[in-house]
């Protein structure tokens, strides 16, 4: 890469701003493409045409799409995210309300995910094809193959209902029973742990086989230190990218877990908003997600560059 890191970051931030701008447009187009609009959905099982028309007028949906988008964008430039079509509450309130639980879940999951995944990866990579490797791989993969909803139902049945160790849901708000976070976090962990650990393992096996790892061992560096200090960094670049995607998945709403354990976070808001054709809310989420993604990707790319310094490839 020719660019110096700082210049590179600046350019990336500019590009990122462009992306954040592009996302709502994309999302707006997509939401417009959806059949029906907020009025139709609001009418529900009483789709009296006159009533729908009235609703449409009330929601000012009778104006051309471009105009509506322009208005929204105008408000955005004043830092305004607009108001929800359905309840009329400010979109910002929606987001901030839902953000708290989502952030909590994401933070907890990630802090557990990284050590767990790396640890498992290290274990599996100790001896390729060895009993430990097979055991770790098989178990994690088997768990990986169980979808969140099934896993959630299962864990709840055992730990909440049979044994009664944990509250099964966070109904009424997490504040009341923090223990209710355990199950969702576990469910959220189950699959990323596997996919991440697999990447760690793959990278480690390659790195450990590389001459420099062998040399480090010959120089009397203890094997574990070689794994952690010499091989792992080379293995991490793709892992970091994968972690960024996972983090984003966590931050942009984990619908199943939220529904199962009644943790109304961004995912729920997103789902409701799309279902209700509540365009302003969807747009608000788009902006939020866009920003989160851009920042995460930037961080990931920075880390990746640090971990995989490039030789001067001939341009």
């Amino acid at each position, binding site marked *: 890469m020719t660019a110096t890191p700082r210049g590179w970051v600046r350019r990336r931030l500019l590009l990122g701003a462009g992306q954040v701008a592009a996302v709502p447009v994309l999302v707006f187009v997509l939401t417009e493409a959806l059949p029906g609009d907020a009025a139709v959905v609001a009418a529900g099982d009483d789709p009296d045409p006159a009533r729908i028309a009235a609703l449409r007028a009330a929601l000012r949906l009778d104006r051309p799409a471009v105009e509506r988008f322009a208005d929204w964008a105008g408000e955005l430039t004043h830092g305004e995210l607009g108001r929800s079509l359905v309840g009329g509450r400010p979109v910002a309130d929606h987001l901030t309300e839902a953000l708290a639980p989502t952030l909590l879940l994401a933070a907890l999951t990630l802090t557990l995910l990284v050590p767990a995944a790396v640890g498992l990866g290290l274990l599996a990579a100790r001896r390729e094809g060895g009993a430990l490797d097979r055991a770790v791989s098989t178990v994690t993969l088997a768990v990986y193959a169980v979808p969140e909803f099934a896993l959630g139902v299962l864990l709840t049945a055992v730990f909440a209902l049979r044994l009664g160790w944990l509250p099964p849901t966070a109904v009424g708000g997490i504040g009341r029973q923090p223990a209710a976070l355990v199950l969702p976090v576990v469910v959220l962990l189950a699959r990323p742990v596997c996919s991440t650990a697999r990447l760690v393992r793959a990278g480690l096996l390659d790195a450990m086989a590389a001459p420099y790892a062998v*040399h480090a061992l*010959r*120089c009397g560096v*203890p094997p574990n230190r070689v794994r952690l200090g010499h091989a792992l960094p080379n293995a991490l670049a793709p892992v970091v990218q994968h972690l960024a995607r996972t983090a984003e998945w966590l931050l942009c709403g984990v619908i199943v877990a939220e529904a199962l354990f009644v943790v109304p976070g961004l995912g729920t808001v997103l789902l409701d908003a799309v279902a209700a054709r509540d365009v302003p809310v969807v747009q608000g989420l788009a902006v939020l997600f866009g920003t989160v993604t851009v920042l995460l990707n930037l961080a990931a790319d920075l880390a990746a560059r640090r971990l995989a*310094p490039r*030789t001067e490839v*001939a*341009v």
Partner: protein
Amino acid sequence: MSGPELAAVDGLRVRVGARVLVDGVSLRVLPGRVTALVGPSGSGKTTTALALLGAYPEGARVSGTVSLAGAGGAPIGHVPQHPGTVLNPARRVGVLLRDLARVHGGGPEAVRRALRDAELSEVDGLLRRYPHQLSGGQQQRLVLAQALLTGARVIVADEPTTGQDPATAHRLAALFRRLAARGTGLLLLSHDLALVRESADEVVLLADGRAVRTGPPDEVLCAPARPELPPVRPALRVRPVMVPTQAAPVRLDVTGLTARHPGGAVVLREVGLSLRAGECLALTGRTGSGKTTLGRCLAGLHPRHEGTVLLDGEPLPRSVRRRGRQRLAAVQYVFQDARSAFADHRPVLDQVARAAVRLRGRTPPAAAAEAAALLAELGLDPAKAARPPGGLSGGELQRAALARSLIVGPAVLVCDEITAGLDADTRASILAHLADRRDRAGLALLFVSHDPAAVDALADRVATLADGRLHPASAAHPFGRQGAAPPG
């Protein structure tokens, strides 16, 4: 001052398939003594040495005993033949060294000492660099520094001076003596007989995997019938008079070439040179003076440079990517580190042949045949070349790398230290081959080398790189000015 042996190999026999790599070799590493292992390329030096480290070729059947009794469990310092491959590309030099220091209970001071001993203290900003930001010789010395940091009582140095200029090599020899004086036992694998004479107490001469002679240097090296000594002045210096160099057209014309590295460090300043067809310009200079960089610039592998490079009067694109097949074929470069220029998984022979397929439009079979022939000419048994690079010795790989470039019939060839790892005979045959090409096919050679003998043997002119500038040097004392030049 020889105490109980630190490490010993007894009747070592290493076989891969039908092939016997090492056949009943015995040697001992004694404290305070430097044991040199010499012998023609492919004679089994590296294999023997690695056996000492407990490493063997894939699927090898091994007999004999290796005892590290004296080493007392401490690691054995190892300076491998291809230093480039054993340096972690993702860690900064500083991290690599400090990590070792910490493991072996040393601090920053230990690191500094090791760097000083390994002649690296002058390289500015070394610790912040990544290994790939070092020159070949610097990498080699870096690995040596690592070996020193381990504080090993036994050090195995495999061709530790291939990348070093004579001055540095000389200092390294002194270092080895110092180490020995401190009671370390060294096993030195080298083709550099000067080095061996200077530093070795005992020499084991290998041939075809067998230890043919053992004893003090003078005895072993000066005894009659010494197949592996260089002919004092190869006959091939005699050149047909009918091709006066001056008359030949200018192939390569370089003016105002300035090259820098990402850090912004300028390595070459306003370098200018011109090469006529059938001419050989030898390029010497302290390690780290920018020889490789220059070669890479010409080859289009280092586009970050200004200045013009004309090939037959035509400007040459800066990057290989923008050079068409003709141009790629016309200007070729032989990598300093032959090992890392070959893909691990494919037979070397195929990789050599592939070049002919791509750049000369040969059919695969034809190319394979041609490659085999060429390798044979360079003294490398094609059967060996049918193995992936891991299965070839250092010197064999170097010849393979040369063949890979020669096979495309280049007009200009940049050779980067291609003789460093070769015994005198092999070297002689290679030089002969190059000279032949030069004279018959009018091949223009830029011959980067630290090896005076090779330079005398081949070069028409000699130029020396120092602090980024090119200094024409009288062919008489090509290395004369080096003491003066600041080390790179």
